[in-house]
C-alpha cells in the first residue's frame, strides 16, 4: 500500500526555515499567517506498514529534532 510520512521539526525545536519563510510573508502582502513550519514529505509503497515506525526512527526522521506522522490509506 502507499504510505505518506510527514516529517516536521519537533515542537519547541528551532525551525530557522519556517521562521524565515514566515518573516517574508508580510512583504508579499500575506497577512494572518503564523506558525509556519517547514518539513518533508516521504511517499513510499510498503507491504507491511508495521515496520514504518522503525524506519522513521532509524532513517527517515531524526527523532532528536523531528517528529513524524505516518499516514496510511483509510480502511
Amino acid at each position, binding site marked *: 500500500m502507499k504510505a505518506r510520512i510527514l516529517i516536521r521539526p519537533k515542537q519547541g525545536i528551532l525551525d530557522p526555515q519556517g521562521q*524565515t519563510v514566515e518573516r517574508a510573508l508580510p512583504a508579499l502582502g500575506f497577512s494572518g499567517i503564523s506558525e509556519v513550519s517547514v518539513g518533508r514529505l516521504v511517499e513510499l509503497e510498503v507491504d507491511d506498514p508495521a515496520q514504518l515506525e522503525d524506519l522513521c526512527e532509524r532513517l527517515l526522521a531524526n527523532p532528536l529534532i523531528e517528529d513524524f506522522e505516518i499516514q496510511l490509506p483509510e480502511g
Partner: protein
Amino acid sequence: MRIGVVRFPGSCDEADAIAAASAVAEAELLWHGRTDLDGVDAVVVPGGFSYGDYLRPGAIARYSPVMTAVAAFAADGGPVLGICNGFQVLCEAGLLPGALLPNNSLRFICRQVDLTVERTTTPWTAACEAGEQLSIPSKHANGRWYADDQTLAQIEANGQVVFRYAPGQNPNGSLADIAGVCSEQGNVVGLMPHPEHAVDLLTGSADGLKLFASVLEEGSSVPVS
C-alpha cells in the same frame, strides 16, 4: 561606468564582487530593500545564501524590492550578471531559464573548474574568445542546472548557453554540462562558478576579470543576439 552589487541578508560574496568590479569600474552595494538601482550601468547579483537558502535557494530573495527594479532594468536591456546564489535568484525570478537543483552528490563542492566560453555576444563575455577556457572556482550545494527537454532544445538553438564545464569537470550533474546561461536578449547572464574569485593570480586565477572587463567594453549598450 558604475556597477551595482545587490546585497541581501545572507549574501556572502558581495564584497568580493565589489572588489572584482572595482578593478574595471566604480562599484557600489545596492541594499535589497531599495526600489531603485541608483542609476548604475550594470548589476551583479552576487553569491551567498540569501535568506539562508531556506525553502529553495533564491526563492525568498527574488521577492526583495530591489529585484523588481532589477527585472525592469533587465527588460530595458541593462546588463545583469547573477553569480551562484545570484544565478539561482535570477532563475527563481524568471529572468533566466531553468532551475538549479541540489548537486547530484548532495554535497557542497568547492573546486577549481575550467569553463568553456560558448557565447561571446553578451555584455559579460564580450572580452572573451569563443571556445576560450577560463579557470574559475566553483562552490555550491545547489548548482545542477536543469530544464525540461523542450526548454533545453530551445536554449541550445537560441545560443543561450554561455558557459559549459570543460569535458569531465562538471561538478554537479548539470544538464549538458551547462555552467551558465543567458536570457533570450542576452543581457542577463547567470553562472554557478565564481568569476569574482578569479581576479588575482595570487589567489589562484585572474581569468574571471574578463567578465568584468567585458561589461566595460560593451558599455551599457544592448547586445545584438
